[in-house]
C-alpha cells in the first residue's frame, strides 16, 4: 500500500502517532470508568433488592401470604417502583406489577444469572416492546411453595453506558481535530522552515558556496541549526580558500626554484668540464632540492595548523626554557653576523602548547630578525623578552633593523610574501606565516609593531582564565 505523500512528513507522522496513542488511552480510560461504574451501580441495585426482600419477608412473617400480597400491591403502585411478582409454583403470575417476562426466569432460585427482559403490567402488549426493559431480580420460594420475585429495572446503568460511549466518540473526534490542528500549525511551519533550509543547501551544493542558510531571528532550534550550519560553511569556505591559496602559492613560488633546479642539472649534464665542476653542480642541486623540500614541508605544516586539524600533542611547556634554548641556538650565528642577540626580561611562564612548534616559530622569528638586522646601523641588536601581562604571556623579539612599514605589516605574515626590501635575502618567505599559524594553533596571536625603526614581533599566548 502506497503511503500518501502527506504522511511522508515527520509532522504528519508524529501527529498520527500522537492521535493513535491518545485514542488508545481514551478508550482504555472510558472502559475502565465504565466497568467501575457499572459494578458500583449493580452493587447498589442488589442492595436495594436485598432491602426490599427483607422488608417483604417481614410482611410475610407478620401477615402470611395475604399480608405479603397486600404490601406488594401497595409498593407496586408507587411511581418508579421495583418489580414485584407473586406467582404460584408453576410460575403463573398471581399478583404484582409485571405482565409478562422472559421465560425461564422462575427456574432460577436466588439471583438471576443475567439481566432478563420483561413487560410491565398495563404497558402495550406488543411483544417487541418487552425487549426495551431489562432487569435483574431475586427469586424466592416461599414456605408454601409460592414464588416471590423482587427485581429492579436496569435502565439507569444502560443509560450511563450509552453516555459513556458517546463521550468516547466525542473525545476521539476532538483529539483527531486537535492532531490536525497541531499538524497544521506546528508541522506546517516547521516544514516550511526545513524546506527553505534544504532549498538553500541545494543551492550551496550546486556550487554557490557564498549562499547561507536563512536565519529567522526567532532564536529557536531551527535558527541554531542554521547558524551552526552557516558556521560550518564559513569554515569550509575558509579551508577551501586556504587550499586554493596553497595551490596557487605552490604553483607560483615553487615553479621558480624548480626551474632553476632543472636548469642547473641540465647545465651540469651538458657541461664538458671536469668531474669537479659536475660534482659541484650536483651538490648545489642537492642543496637546492633540500631547500625545496623544506619549503614544501613548511607549506604543509602551515596548512595543517591553519586548518586546525593538526594532531600535534599539547602539554605544559616552560616558555622561558624555550627562550633560553633558542637564544642559545642562535647566539653564535648572531655573533657571526655581527648582531648582538640577548634576552632582556624573562619571566617564568608555563603555557599549554607544543614545545616543538613554539621552538620552531621562535627560531623563525629570531632567524628573520638576525637576517634583516645584520649589517644595518651602528650596533645591530636583537632583544628577546618574555613577560607575563595579565591574562597573556608576551614573547617578543625586537630588533633595531629597518623594520616593516605599518601598511605592509599585515601582509608580512601572509604566505610567501617577501616584502620588496627583502627580495635579495635568502629564505622561503614562510617564517612569519609559520609563526602566525603556530600562534593560531595555540589560540594566541602574532603581533607586529615597532616605531622609529626596528620591528617587534610578539607571540602572545593566552594564560589562565581571564583571556
Amino acid at each position: 500500500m502506497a503511503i500518501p505523500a502527506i504522511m511522508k512528513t515527520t509532522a504528519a507522522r508524529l501527529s498520527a502517532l500522537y492521535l493513535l496513542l491518545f485514542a488508545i488511552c481514551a478508550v482504555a480510560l472510558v472502559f475502565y470508568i465504565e466497568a467501575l461504574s457499572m459494578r458500583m451501580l449493580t452493587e447498589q441495585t442488589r442492595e436495594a433488592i436485598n432491602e426490599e426482600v427483607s422488608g417483604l419477608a417481614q410482611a410475610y412473617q407478620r401477615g402470611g401470604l395475604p399480608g405479603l400480597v397486600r404490601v406488594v400491591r401497595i409498593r407496586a403502585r408507587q411511581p418508579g417502583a421495583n418489580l414485584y411478582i407473586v406467582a404460584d409454583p408453576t410460575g403463573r403470575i398471581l399478583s404484582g406489577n409485571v405482565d409478562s417476562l422472559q421465560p425461564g426466569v422462575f427456574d432460577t432460585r436466588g439471583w438471576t444469572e443475567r439481566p432478563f427482559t420483561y413487560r410491565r403490567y398495563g404497558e402495550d402488549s406488543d411483544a417487541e416492546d418487552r425487549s426495551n426493559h431489562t432487569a435483574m431480580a431475586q427469586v424466592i420460594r416461599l414456605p408454601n411453595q409460592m414464588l416471590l420475585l423482587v427485581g429492579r429495572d436496569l435502565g439507569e446503568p444502560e443509560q450511563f453506558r450509552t453516555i459513556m460511549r458517546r463521550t468516547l466518540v466525542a473525545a476521539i473526534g476532538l483529539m483527531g481535530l486537535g492532531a490536525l490542528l497541531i499538524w497544521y500549525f506546528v508541522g506546517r511551519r516547521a516544514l516550511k522552515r526545513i524546506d527553505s533550509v534544504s532549498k538553500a543547501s541545494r543551492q550551496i551544493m550546486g556550487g554557490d558556496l557564498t549562499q547561507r542558510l536563512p536565519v529567522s531571528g526567532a532564536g529557536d532550534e531551527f535558527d541554531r541549526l542554521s547558524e551552526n550550519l552557516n558556521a560550518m560553511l564559513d569554515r569550509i569556505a575558509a579551508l577551501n580558500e586556504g587550499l586554493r591559496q596553497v595551490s596557487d602559492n605552490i604553483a607560483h613560488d615553487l615553479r621558480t626554484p624548480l626551474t632553476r633546479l632543472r636548469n642547473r642539472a641540465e647545465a651540469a649534464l651538458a657541461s664538458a668540464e671536469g668531474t669537479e665542476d659536475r660534482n659541484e653542480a650536483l651538490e648545489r642541486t642537492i642543496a637546492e632540492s633540500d631547500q625545496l623540500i623544506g619549503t614544501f614541508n613548511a607549506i604543509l605544516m602551515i596548512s595543517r595548523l591553519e586548518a586546525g586539524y593538526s594532531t600535534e600533542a599539547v602539554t605544559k611547556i616552560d616558555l622561558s626554557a624555550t627562550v633560553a634554548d633558542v637564544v642559545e641556538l642562535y647566539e653564535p650565528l648572531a655573533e657571526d653576523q655581527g648582531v648582538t642577540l640577548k634576552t632582556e626580561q624573562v619571566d617564568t611562564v608555563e603555557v599549554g602548547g607544543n614545545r616543538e612548534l613554539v621552538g620552531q616559530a621562535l627560531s623563525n622569528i629570531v632567524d628573520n630578525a638576525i637576517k634583516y638586522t645584520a649589517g644595518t646601523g651602528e650596533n645591530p641588536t636583537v632583544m628577546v623578552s618574555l613577560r607575563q601581562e595579565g591574562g597573556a604571556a608576551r614573547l617578543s623579539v625586537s630588533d633595531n633593523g629597518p623594520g616593516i612599514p605599518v601598511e605592509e605589516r599585515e601582509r608580512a605574515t601572509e604566505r610567501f610574501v617577501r616584502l620588496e626590501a627583502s627580495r635579495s635575502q635568502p629564505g622561503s618567505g614562510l617564517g612569519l606565516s609559520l609563526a602566525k599559524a603556530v600562534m593560531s594553533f595555540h589560540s594566541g596571536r602574532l603581533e607586529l609593531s615597532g616605531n622609529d625603526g626596528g620591528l617587534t614581533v610578539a607571540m602572545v599566548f593566552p594564560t589562565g582564565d581571564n583571556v
Partner: protein
Amino acid sequence: MKILVIEDDREAAGFLKKAFAEVGHTADIASDGEVGFALADSGSYDVFVVDRMLPRRDGLSVIAELRARGNTTPALILSALGEVDDRVTGLRAGGDDYLTKPYAFSELLARVEVLKRRSGSKDVETVYRVGDLELDRLAHSVRRGGQEITLQPREFRLLEYLMRHAGQVVTRTMLLENVWDYHFDPQTNVIDVHISRLRGKIEKGFDKPLLHTVRGAGYVLRDE
C-alpha cells in the same frame, strides 16, 4: 651491514638497495608488511628500515610485534607524515628513529649507521677518546694532548655526541635532534656555526684536524 628495507614503492626500494650497495651494505627488500615481518622475524639483520604505510600490514604493527617477540634489532621508520605526534607514536611502537619523506639518502645512511652502532653501545664508557682528544663524561672535562679545554655545557653535549659516534657521519638534523632536542629543520646554518666554534676550541693550536665536514651530508669526528 645487512639491512632489511620494508618499502612498497618499488622504485624507492630499488634505489635504496643500489645506494646501500654502493657504500658496501647489503639490503634485502620486502614489498609488504607480511613479507617484511616474516623476513625480519627469521633473518638476521643489523637494521630494519620500515615504511609506515604498507600493504597488508602497517609498519608500526610489524615493529610492535617484532618487539613483542623479543627482537631488538634497531628499526628506522620512514613516513610521509611529518607531525610530531607521528614521531611519538612511531617511537612508542618500538621504532628507534624516525625520518620523514622526502629525505636525503645521506641522512638515511647516517642514521642507519648510527643505529647499527647503537647495538654495540658506548653508553657504558665513561671516557671517550678520539686521537689525542679525550672527553670524560663523569668529570665533565675535555682534554687534548693533556691540555684542558673549557667548553660551554651545550658545546660539551655536542662534542659528546660527536665522540660517541666517532667515525660516523652525523647530519645537522641529527645534531639538532640529539643535542638540542628539537626536530624541526633550521632554516639557516645555525648548526654549522656551533660546529665551527667547537672546532675552534678543540683544534686551535693543534696540527691535526679532528672534526671534518662531509659535503652534502654533515660532520664526522675522526682521527685520520
